[in-house]
Structure formats: structure tokens, C-alpha cells
């Protein structure tokens, strides 16, 4: 006879406890029984099933007809569907195969839901800030508008169904690595998540503003000095659209101090502002008419500069269905191609860099029930947002908003202390349907159809460059540009009135745009969209150096081919240094230098101002110029809050035209310094640092300019770090340590477009894949890949390395 052996209770309990422990996350350790299990664990992510198997077939996905996906040598998918819905379904499906975790995670980043994945107060802070800026709210309201458009709704929903068809097929073994590592599972995809991803891109590109700095500067400096140092325009610009032949207008007058603006109006709180947005994120794109190319066909170049990230921000693909055949880069999580070309047209995008975000100082009652508007106290709106937290109770945040917009910072929570009780008006919050622009551009055949597509694009304001194989070239500064009075939005606005709330936009036809200019090329590189003859006031955070250099290089040559255009894209010249270096060198009295310094001076004199890999001068110039700035603008550092320096060209013009200006006089010295004194002092200080660095080792620019490609979780092991690179943010090849050309594309149109391109990343988002970061080295060396735009399914099949059949 048998019975249960009670002595066995202990081992049974031990076994159960072990299984339980190994199935769950302990502190930060992922569930070991699952992730180290060789059959289902992370080791199963160490492969490229979809990108390596010669032939795969997946049935019962919910498609109406079969879809063929051909992966070429670079593992770029070419998707051939028999109808539009199947095409976007498959785009969702294939994107999910390659990038599911990335797109899912990005939607959490956008919405402010990171607390659902990570423990820690800093994630809650991040989420609260996102919610308070209204990202989730704005996405929901945009989705409501988007879904009223049947075409967008159909396409967005097809994409969503495609992503979900893939999610449904997943099990623990096939789950992307990061879900296993962070111990969570993908939620179903939704149209809202696609909108969130689009909004995050808008947020990155239009979030930068300096309203508080400018207000403080206006008060500190007074109108005269402020306008001298911070004018709307300076002389060294090459505007995107030429209005110089038009009747001069006087909308860009000198800024006046708004009547309400005084020190008691704005906060004098000294706080180091958090860097939430990067002003330098920009892009280059230009287009050359056939009259200036060897082949007689137009060439378009586009290289958007974004944060370097892994998985790569872009995903290359070709989408083909009846009525549509397009190649380019898509943003994982959103349908259609964002930058690319089809048989007839090519288009590129750069950031418009306009100011579309304003702060209104409110007079809020202490209990956050009312605020002053006109002569009345008006009720503050409020909503409660639930922020779910991993392993903890949800956090509920009350967000107040006035007629102007949400109060992002209040006395319970702030990321920008100096903006407590200010309402934020951001164009990004206005519902809009940017998807429709891309859906239509993807199939546009000529400028008319293309331009018709642009009208849906509202925010962020972007410059769209265009070339067509009929010879047309164009550039459009597209988006909701509010009609503003002079200097409106440069300073903190008075929230006790609604008189400065913008209600109208510049009409579509009056937005800066140009078609087929006489010079036969058009350049957009985040510079001023127009000169000061433009009939409407606008302001923004423009960068001029890259546009100046591109325009110069395009003007110099008359027979361009793809190779020459690639060389421009990779040009490392800092055009500011080209202008500035002779001027500041001239200010140095060489007889006061020692032998080493003289030698360095001569080296600088012969420097071509290129931030090439092997150049040894860039760091010296950097230090020298930065010392000059610090010594000149020392007056701006004596305040409890940091202030933004004037533009480099303003300082340079001051050196040239007004070398005895009071700003050159250093604080705390009895001597009255002039420009040449501080330029000399800056040189000596920089050269001392330079010689020290040189003695330590390598001053070659490529070794100093180390580029990091951070995984979205910022975990170094999943990132690619410290890659030595040429380039500089002010050069066309705008590589900095953490952002730069995220996609380089050059397209020559013709019967069939010829195109080259590369991005720093790879096709796969899987950290265990061979195709995760395999383009980075070639990208760093300035190589391009031929982009296979297959004109027919037969050619795609013939060119395919592996095939995926979806049904």
C-alpha cells in the first residue's frame, strides 16, 4: 500500500517556490527560468528567421488576397499587394516583424506611459510632464479628426490590423528581446498609437523655444541693445525662398518691449532649465533642376538630422499596389513612406524651425479654480490623467488648462520652475491629419498632385523639397503658420487677456514656396524660409551655416551627377569658420606669440575649415571661438539664470564693425578691453588647452568626434558607442555625438529613378540580429547603397534574396 510521503513536503515546496521565483522578476532581474531557458528564452532572439529563410509562407492573417514581400540584399522589404488595404496591412505586419518593440515603446514614450514598464520616480516625472504637455490628449483629439477622413481611417486601420496580426502570432519564444528583458508583453496596436508616434516626431521637431530667455534679455538689455544682438534677421543668410525682388514690407521691424513685460511680470527664479529639446536637430535637403545636371534630369538630396538611436528611427521599404509604387523610409508605427520617391517624383523634408510654441503668464487663483481673463475671473478647466505604474497603484494627476492651453508646471509639479502657472499654447495640440499628406504624396505623379497633398500638413512646420521627372523642382514651407503681429511669440505673452491668441493662419498660397527658380536649384536646411520682404511676420530658431554652404557649392558647379551630390552631402566645411577665421586671425598681433603659438597660427591660417577625420585644427577653432564668446558675453552670465548667447554672426559682425563695443570690455577688470584684446586672450587660452590635449595624444577631429547610437532604453550593451566620425553640426555633414544625418538619400529622376541612400542602423530592430546595426560603419565612412526601386514584381522577385508570402 502506498501513501503520500509527508517527508517529501519540503522538496515539493522547494520546487514550487523555485518555479515561482524563476517565473517572476525579482528586483531588476528578469525571470530567469524564462529568459535563460534555451528553447524559449533570449537565446531564441539570437537569429534572423524572417531575414534569413529563403522562403516563408504565413496564412490566415486576414488579408483579402495574397501579398508578396521580397527582401533584397540589404534586407529592405519590397511589398507587393493587389489592393491598398492589403498593402498597408502588410506594411504594418512587416514593420512589426522588424521593429515591433521599437514602435510599441515609442508610443509609450510619446504618451507618457513609461511608468508602466519601468519602476522609478524619474519615469513618473517624465510621464507627468508628457501628459501635462498634452501629448496623449493631443493624439486623441487628432485621431478623432483623422478618423473622420474615410481614406486615412481605412489605411490607418489596415496598418493597425497588420501589426495586430503579427502580435497575435507571437509567443514567449518569438517575443522581441526587450519584452523578455523588461518582462512585459505587447499590448494590441491601435490607430491611437500610430498618431502618438507622429506626435512624438512633431514634439521633437517643434518643441524648442526661448520665450523666457528672450523676455529676460529684452528687460536686461533694453530695446536698442536687444535688437542689435537678437534681430529677426542678420546679414549672413541664404533664405530658402527669394522674396528680394518683391516690394519691401515692414513687418519685421525692430522688436518693441511689450507693455506688460517687466521684471515683476516674469519670474526671476534662478533655475537651470532642463534641456528638453534640441535646437540643432535639423536637416538638409536640396534639389537641382535638370538644367544643372549632367544627365539633364533633376536630382534631389535629403538628409534629415535626428537623434541617433537604435533601433534606427527609419525603416526603408518599397510599397507597391495598383495606383501606388513608392520607395523610401517610413517611421516604424506609422503607415506610408515619409521621405522617398516614386517613378515620377522625389521629395525630401527638413524642419521648418518656426516658433509654434508660446507661453502665457496666467493670474491663477491659489486654489486653481479660476484665473483672470479680461476683467473677469474665469473657471480653469481641469482633467485627471491616470498614470499606471508597474507593481504600484496608479498615480492620478490633475492637469489644469486655461483658454490658452495647459498649465504644464504648477506648484505641485514642475519641470521648468520658471514657468509655473504659465499656459502653453503649442500648435502640436491642434488636431491635424499629417498621415493624409504622406498617403497622397506617395502616389503623386506631378507637382499639382503633390501640392494638393501638402495642404493637410499642419504641424510641425516642415520644408518639403520636390523634384519631378517632368523637370519641375520646388520647395514649400508647409504647416500652420499663425498670423502674428511683430515679435508676437518671441516673448512671454500676457495670459490675462485673450487678445494675443492666434486665430488665423497664413493662407496656403502665401506660405513661403518656390517653383523652378532661375538659379535652377533650391536649398532647405533649417535656414530662414524667406528674407525680410516676406509679407507676414514669423519667428523661429533657424540655422544658416549649412544652407549657406550648400548654396555656395550648388552655385559653383553646373554639371551635377549623383556622385557630386553625395560629396556635398558629406561635406565637412564649417561655413561660419570660413567667414570668421580670416577676421579673427587678422586681429592677432603675431609678434606677441611664442614659437609654438606662431606655428599653430600658421596652421590655422592654412586650414580649409573642414571637420575632416584627420584634420587637427577643428578643436582649436572650437575652443578659440567659444572663448571669444564667453569673454564677450560675460555680461550675460552675471544673472541668476542662464541666458542664450546672440548668434555667432552677430558677434562676428560686431568684431568687424564695432570692435570697441562695450560688450568686449571684460567685467571685473579696470582696463577697457576691445575686440582684439579678447580675441588674443581667447587664442592664448585655447592654444594652451590645445597643446595640453596634443601632448596627451590625438587631436585628430575624427578621434575627438565620437558618435553614440543609444538603444531606446539607453542601456550601453544594446547600443553602439564611441564611433569616431568626421563631420560637425554646422557643416553639411552635420554629425554630432548624439544626432546627425539619420538618413542620406540622393535620387535622380528619369524613366526609372536612380537612387542611393543609407542610414546609421540596420533593417532589424532585434539586438540579436546581424542586421541590427550593420549599416553604421559604412554610413560612418560616407558610403551609400544603391536603392533597389523595382519597377515590377518580376524584377523584385528576381532581385530578392528571400521571400515572405502573406495570405
Amino acid at each position, binding site marked *: 500500500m502506498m501513501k503520500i510521503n509527508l517527508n517529501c513536503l519540503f522538496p515539493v515546496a522547494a520546487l514550487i517556490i523555485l518555479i515561482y521565483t524563476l517565473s517572476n522578476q525579482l528586483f531588476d532581474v528578469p525571470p530567469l*527560468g524564462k529568459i535563460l531557458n534555451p528553447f*524559449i528564452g533570449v537565446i531564441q532572439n539570437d537569429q534572423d528567421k524572417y531575414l534569413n529563410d529563403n522562403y516563408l509562407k504565413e496564412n490566415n492573417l486576414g488579408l483579402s488576397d495574397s501579398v508578396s514581400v521580397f527582401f533584397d540584399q540589404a534586407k529592405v522589404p519590397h511589398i507587393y499587394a493587389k489592393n491598398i488595404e492589403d498593402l498597408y496591412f502588410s506594411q504594418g505586419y512587416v514593420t512589426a516583424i522588424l521593429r515591433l518593440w521599437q514602435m510599441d515603446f515609442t508610443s509609450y514614450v510619446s504618451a507618457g506611459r513609461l511608468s508602466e514598464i519601468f519602476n522609478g520616480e524619474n519615469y513618473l516625472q517624465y510621464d507627468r510632464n508628457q501628459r501635462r504637455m498634452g501629448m496623449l490628449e493631443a493624439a486623441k483629439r487628432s485621431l478623432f479628426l483623422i478618423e473622420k477622413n474615410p481614406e486615412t481611417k481605412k489605411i490607418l486601420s489596415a496598418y493597425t490590423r497588420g501589426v495586430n496580426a503579427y502580435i497575435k502570432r507571437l509567443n514567449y519564444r518569438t517575443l522581441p528581446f526587450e519584452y523578455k528583458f523588461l518582462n512585459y508583453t505587447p499590448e494590441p496596436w491601435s490607430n491611437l498609437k500610430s498618431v502618438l508616434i507622429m506626435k512624438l516626431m512633431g514634439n521633437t521637431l517643434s518643441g524648442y523655444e526661448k520665450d523666457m530667455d528672450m523676455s529676460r534679455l529684452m528687460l536686461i538689455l533694453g530695446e536698442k541693445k536687444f535688437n542689435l544682438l537678437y534681430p529677426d534677421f542678420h546679414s549672413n543668410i541664404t533664405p530658402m525662398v527669394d522674396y528680394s525682388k518683391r516690394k519691401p514690407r515692414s513687418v519685421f521691424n525692430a522688436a518693441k518691449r511689450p507693455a506688460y513685460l517687466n521684471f515683476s511680470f516674469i519670474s526671476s527664479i534662478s533655475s537651470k532649465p532642463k534641456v528638453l529639446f534640441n535646437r540643432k536637430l535639423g536637416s538638409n535637403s536640396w534639389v537641382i533642376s535638370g538644367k544643372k545636371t549632367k544627365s539633364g534630369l533633376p536630382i534631389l538630396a535629403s538628409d534629415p538630422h535626428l537623434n541617433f538611436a537604435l533601433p534606427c528611427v527609419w525603416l526603408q521599404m518599397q510599397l507597391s499596389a495598383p495606383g501606388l509604387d513608392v520607395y523610401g523610409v517610413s517611421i516604424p508605427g506609422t503607415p506610408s513612406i515619409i521621405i522617398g520617391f516614386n517613378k515620377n517624383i522625389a521629395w525630401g523634408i527638413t524642419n521648418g524651425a518656426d516658433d509654434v510654441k508660446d507661453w502665457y503668464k496666467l493670474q491663477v487663483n491659489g486654489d486653481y479654480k479660476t484665473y483672470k481673463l479680461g476683467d473677469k475671473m474665469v473657471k480653469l478647466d481641469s482633467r485627471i490623467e491616470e498614470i499606471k505604474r508597474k507593481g504600484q497603484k496608479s498615480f492620478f494627476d490633475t492637469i489644469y488648462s486655461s483658454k490658452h492651453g495647459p498649465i504644464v508646471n504648477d506648484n505641485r509639479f514642475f519641470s521648468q520652475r520658471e514657468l509655473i502657472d504659465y499656459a502653453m499654447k503649442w500648435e502640436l495640440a491642434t488636431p491635424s491629419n499629417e498621415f493624409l499628406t504622406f498617403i497622397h504624396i506617395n502616389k503623386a505623379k506631378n507637382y499639382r498632385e503633390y501640392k494638393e497633398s501638402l495642404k493637410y500638413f499642419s504641424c510641425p512646420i516642415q520644408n518639403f523639397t520636390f523634384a519631378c521627372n517632368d523637370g519641375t523642382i520646388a520647395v514649400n514651407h508647409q504647416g500652420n503658420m499663425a498670423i502674428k503681429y511683430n515679435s508676437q511669440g518671441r516673448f512671454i505673452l500676457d495670459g490675462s487677456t485673450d487678445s494675443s491668441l492666434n486665430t488665423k493662419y497664413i493662407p496656403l498660397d502665401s506660405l513661403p514656396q518656390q517653383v523652378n527658380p532661375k538659379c535652377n536649384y533650391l536649398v532647405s536646411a533649417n535656414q530662414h524660409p524667406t528674407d525680410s520682404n516676406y509679407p507676414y511676420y514669423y519667428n523661429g530658431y533657424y540655422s544658416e551655416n549649412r544652407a549657406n554652404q550648400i548654396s555656395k557649392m550648388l552655385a559653383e558647379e553646373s554639371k551635377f551627377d549623383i556622385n557630386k551630390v553625395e560629396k556635398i552631402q558629406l561635406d565637412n566645411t564649417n561655413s561660419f569658420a570660413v567667414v570668421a577665421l580670416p577676421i579673427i586671425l587678422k586681429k592677432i598681433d603675431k609678434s606677441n606669440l611664442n614659437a609654438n603659438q606662431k606655428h599653430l597660427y600658421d596652421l590655422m591660417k592654412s586650414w580649409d575649415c573642414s571637420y575632416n577625420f584627420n584634420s587637427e585644427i577643428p578643436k582649436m577653432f572650437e575652443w578659440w571661438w567659444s572663448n571669444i564668446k564667453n569673454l564677450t558675453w560675460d555680461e550675460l552670465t552675471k544673472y541668476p539664470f542662464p541666458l542664450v548667447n546672440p548668434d555667432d554672426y552677430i558677434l562676428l559682425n560686431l568684431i568687424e564693425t564695432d570692435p570697441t563695443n562695450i560688450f568686449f570690455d571684460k567685467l571685473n577688470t579696470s582696463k577697457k578691453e576691445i575686440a582684439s584684446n579678447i580675441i588674443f586672450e581667447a587664442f592664448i587660452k585655447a592654444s594652451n588647452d590645445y597643446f595640453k590635449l596634443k601632448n596627451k595624444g590625438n587631436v585628430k577631429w575624427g578621434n575627438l568626434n565620437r558618435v553614440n547610437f543609444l538603444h531606446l532604453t539607453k542601456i550601453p550593451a544594446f547600443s553602439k558607442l564611441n564611433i569616431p566620425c568626421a563631420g560637425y553640426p554646422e557643416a553639411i555633414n552635420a554629425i554630432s555625438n548624439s544626432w546627425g544625418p539619420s538618413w542620406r538619400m540622393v535620387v535622380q529622376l528619369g524613366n526609372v529613378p536612380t537612387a542611393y541612400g543609407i542610414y546609421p542602423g540596420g533593417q532589424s530592430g532585434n539586438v540579436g540580429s546581424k542586421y541590427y546595426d550593420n549599416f553604421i560603419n559604412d554610413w560612418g565612412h560616407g558610403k551609400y547603397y544603391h536603392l533597389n526601386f523595382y519597377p515590377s514584381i518580376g524584377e523584385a522577385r528576381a532581385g530578392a534574396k528571400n521571400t515572405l508570402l502573406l495570405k
Partner: protein
Amino acid sequence: MKINLIQNTLIIMIIGIIMMTLSNIDFLPWWVFLLPVLILGIIISLLKLNLKVFILGFIAGFVIWFGGNLFFDIKYNGFVLAKLANVLSVPKLLLPLVSGIIGGVITGLAMYVGKNVLKYTELTNVD
């Protein structure tokens, strides 16, 4: 002695097959292979085979989990374990080793529990 060796090898192989087969069934929990291992332990107890079941289970579990990770690491790209080891700041080989120990301990324990969960009353009497 020889019979014992054959028996031991056979048991290890049976456990290995159980682990490999059941771990590939996606909708079952990852530890489901422990149930047939446990039953195997019961069978051994019913057959009154005098085997050191924990050791046998441990060897089988260790070999399959340690070897499995190594096998796939070589067969596939060899990136994931290296990157994970980098995150945890441990040598890469430690991960398959830890995996092997986990596989070994739970399989051995399941065998042990299986063999000892039931007992014959006469044995109890003797005790």
C-alpha cells in the same frame, strides 16, 4: 553495475527528450516539462529502481539547458548572450552555466519529488 549505467543513461535521455519536446509547445508554461519528469520519478519509485534520481535529473537538466544555450549561441548569431552578459557585467559563459544550474536543480528536484512523493507503507513500517 553495467545495467545501472545503462539505466542511468536511459533515464537521462528520456528526461532530455521530455524537456526538448515540451519546451517547444508554445501555449504551455515554461516549466511544464517538470510534470512528466516528476511522473518519471514516480515510475522509477514504482519500479523500485535504486537510482540517485536527483543527480540524474540534475545532469539531464544541466546538459540540456547549458548545452542548449551554447548550441543556439553557436548556431545563431552569438550576440544576445554576449550583450546580456555585458548588461549584467558577467562573463558570457556564466549565463549558460547559470541556465544549466537552474535547469539541473529544478529537473533534479522534480525527479526527487517524483521518486519520494509516494512511499510503501511496509517501508514506513520498517522505518
